[in-house]
């Protein structure tokens, strides 16, 4: 169990500020996710913690002890790599024992700890096998066992599931989460997959261009994105530009896309351009009237089984996506008018960029 404090960490590659003055506090036993699009600096930050990328300025502390000057092999982190990095010239058991041997653990203890670790990742009995006899998912489990078995101060994951197929990915992320919780290890998890991040994290930091946009729990990140970037990156929200109207003490009307949206609270001074985030599931198909409504016209229907995604256009032609249940409005054809109801509290306004 380790708490990690990162202060004003910076790293540049030539003109690229890969990690730009980042400060973070990661708590004991937390699964903390670094989320962001490719190239935003997640890997660089993780590798700075592991000791593979030099720190330019700033500091990293584990439990109050500075570790950023230690060489990588003395930092006591357990890293799980995207491409598994299983030593092909060692058996599964030897792979798992590798870090224990480096720590000069007695041989008898190594055997029992390796067995237990393999059991934990549901690979009991696979010890004598050679890595090339294992599937991708099994290799990733070996990699996880190898990192767990040394009981590191911190577990580091760099997109550990991105080489697996979709089905295995969703299964494995649950396993990763359960193992981390069972062992009570602090973990930093890098991913660009927002669903994966939402599913398993205690807290998420959304990164962009080497800086932090927001740090929060998955629920708050999703429901209360603090910037337009976070809103757009998490879930395929509709971003609609508009002009704020006068606050009526309760709501603010925003003229947008040839119609008007009602947004909870005072958004901005009247006449200020704003950007509205309207989540597809915040819009509901309605027949009648009542509440806040907008009108749209159906353009295309994507039927996805349990749900469907409707592509529609707002009065001025702005495209908008709407989530509906699989059985809803099946008789509607492209061109049909839609009436969409929403809760003003579910619409977020950001200052226009």
């Amino acid at each position, binding site marked *: 169990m380790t708490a990690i404090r990162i202060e004003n960490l910076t790293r540049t590659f030539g003109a690229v500020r890969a990690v730009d003055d980042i400060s973070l506090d990661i708590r004991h036993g937390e699964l903390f996710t670094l989320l962001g699009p490719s190239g935003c600096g997640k890997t660089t930050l993780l590798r700075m913690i*592991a*000791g*593979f990328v030099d720190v330019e300025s700033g500091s990293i502390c584990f439990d109050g002890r500075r570790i950023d000057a230690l*060489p*990588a*092999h*003395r*930092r*006591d*982190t*357990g*890293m799980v*790599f*995207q*491409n598994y*990095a299983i*030593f*092909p*010239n060692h058996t599964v058991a030897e792979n798992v024992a*590798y*870090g224990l041997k*480096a*720590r000069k653990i007695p041989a008898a203890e190594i055997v029992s700890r390796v067995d237990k670790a393999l059991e934990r990742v549901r690979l009991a009995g696979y010890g004598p096998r050679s890595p090339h006899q294992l599937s991708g998912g099994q290799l990733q489990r070996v*990699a996880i066992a*190898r990192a767990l078995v*040394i009981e590191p101060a911190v577990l580091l994951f760099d997109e550990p599931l991105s080489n697996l197929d979709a089905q295995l990915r969703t299964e494995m992320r649950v396993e990763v989460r359960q193992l981390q919780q069972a062992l009570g290890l602090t973990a930093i998890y890098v991913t660009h997959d927002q669903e994966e991040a939402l599913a398993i994290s205690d807290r998420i930091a959304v990164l962009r261009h080497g800086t932090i946009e927001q740090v929060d729990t998955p629920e708050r990140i999703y429901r209360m994105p603090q910037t337009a970037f976070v809103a757009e990156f998490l879930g395929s929200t509709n971003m609609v530009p508009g002009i704020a109207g006068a606050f009526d003490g309760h709501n603010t009307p925003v003229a947008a896309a040839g119609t008007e949206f009602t947004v909870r609270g005072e958004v901005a001074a009247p006449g200020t351009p704003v950007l509205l985030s309207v989540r597809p599931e915040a819009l509901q198909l309605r027949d009648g009237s009542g509440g806040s409504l907008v009108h749209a016209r159906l353009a295309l229907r994507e039927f996805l089984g349990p749900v469907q995604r409707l592509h529609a256009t707002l009065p001025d032609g702005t495209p908008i996506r709407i989530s509906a249940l699989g059985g809803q409005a099946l008789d509607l054809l492209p061109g049909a008018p839609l009436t969409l109801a929403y809760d003003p509290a579910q619409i977020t306004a950001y200052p226009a960029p």
Partner: protein
Amino acid sequence: MKRFATIVTLAALVLLAVFLLYPLALVLDASFRIDGTGGLTLGNYAAIVKSRYYLGSIGNSLLCAALATVFACAIGIPLAFCLARIDIPGRALLLTLASLPLVLPSFVSAYALVLLFGHAGVVTTALRGIGIPIGSIYGLPGIVIVFTLTLYPYVVMPVLAGFQAVDASMEEAARNLGGSRPYVIRTVLLPIVMPAILAGGLLVFIEALENFGVPAVLAEDRPFLAVDIFKLFAGESDANPAAAGALSVLLIACTAIALLVQRHYLGKRRFSTNARSAPAKLPLTPGLRLTATIVSWGIVIASLLPFAAVLMISLLRFRGPVLTWEFGLGNYATLLSGSYRPLLNTLTLASIAAVATMLIGAPIGYVVARHRSRLSGLLDFVGMVPFAVSGTILAIGLIIAFNSGPLILTGGWLILVIAYVVRKLPFAIRSSSAIVHQLDPSLEEASINLGVSPSKTFATLTVPLMASGLVGGLVLVWITAASELSATIVLYASGWVTTTVVMYHAIEGTGAGLAAAAAAVLILVTAIPLLLINRRINKQESTVI
């Protein structure tokens, strides 16, 4: 990690500075000195420019290399295309055989030509017997033939990789978009393969220009740069080290320019053969396929035939220079009756050199591949310099450098080993860095992350992972060191005569039988290890080029 890389880089640079750059600098220096007095002069160069003989020597060498390049491309490109795109029977075997001429000693091939078509050659005498005179193969024609037949694999390997790197979908896409087959070849295939052709062709040019053994066997009295440099430096009567230096500088200038152009065309391009789906074999009529098969096999067999002929002839009895049709092991008896020493020397020196080369080359290759820095870039560059320097010139430099002064090496075995190591180092560096490129860097990071220090990770994880590739490199260095002639002939001392030296002197003298036996021994010494590990070799060859 960084410290490890810095130490390796600095150690390697010091080594190369002492045993490569310093000797070369001395050769350059000698070319500007008045022989005897040591005053500065441009006279050596002026003498070359004024001498018809030396201009002819430069002209002959350049012409020969250019012709060999053209012919090697002329047979190498079609062969590469057939290997890549036509379903030729025995393709895998053909591919292995096609790479053999690169490592078999080319002057043996030249000597085979002498045995077959020379003044007293088997074919010459037979044809003369029935009244058909044939032209002389000495000089330009023979030398160009031998260079073409021994160097064409330099064209085949990269061009083949180029043809295979064209992903099938790329070609299909072009066809799908309405391109006719010739149009697709012109717009998709050629642009990909052209740099490979240039790169391979220039390599042929460089090798042909530098080569000492082939003109030494076939030039007779015609002037050739590589031979003249040797004669000027080591000749008994007309020695003129200063002139040898000037000619050396000119030769290095030519090869260096060619090498720079070659590197430029190769650039950052990697002709990876693992295109996701290799292009489909061409649908051909049986007639065309048969033609392609005959041509492909014909080229490869023709290039190996001289070696087979030498093996055969070594088993026949010679009366003086004249061959008889009686079988016997007499030639081998003559070869070994003198002493086993030359053979033993060859094996010993090659073994020491091979191990030393890989021990030095592997860490350098690792650093060059893994730790890009200005220093390792410099090392990468200096490490390639031996490519541009012929063995004879390096040997001359080593003699000037270590004949006197604080470190005297001439006359012993060490200077031979040093010459071999320096000459083969580019190969060792290239092949080990190619192996490292195939190793996932996160394997080493995983090891370090689990608590093993970087230097221990290199020794206990990286080296074992590189091992199987390094063995291939080791064997190739061993083979080429065992059949090295151009530096050996300058550097050997009485106790350290090698098989190649025995063969050279036997050819110079009248020991045709002895020469044939020595040549046969060289073929066996090189071919046997090759066959033992030929699968590995195939991979290496393409990476080296």
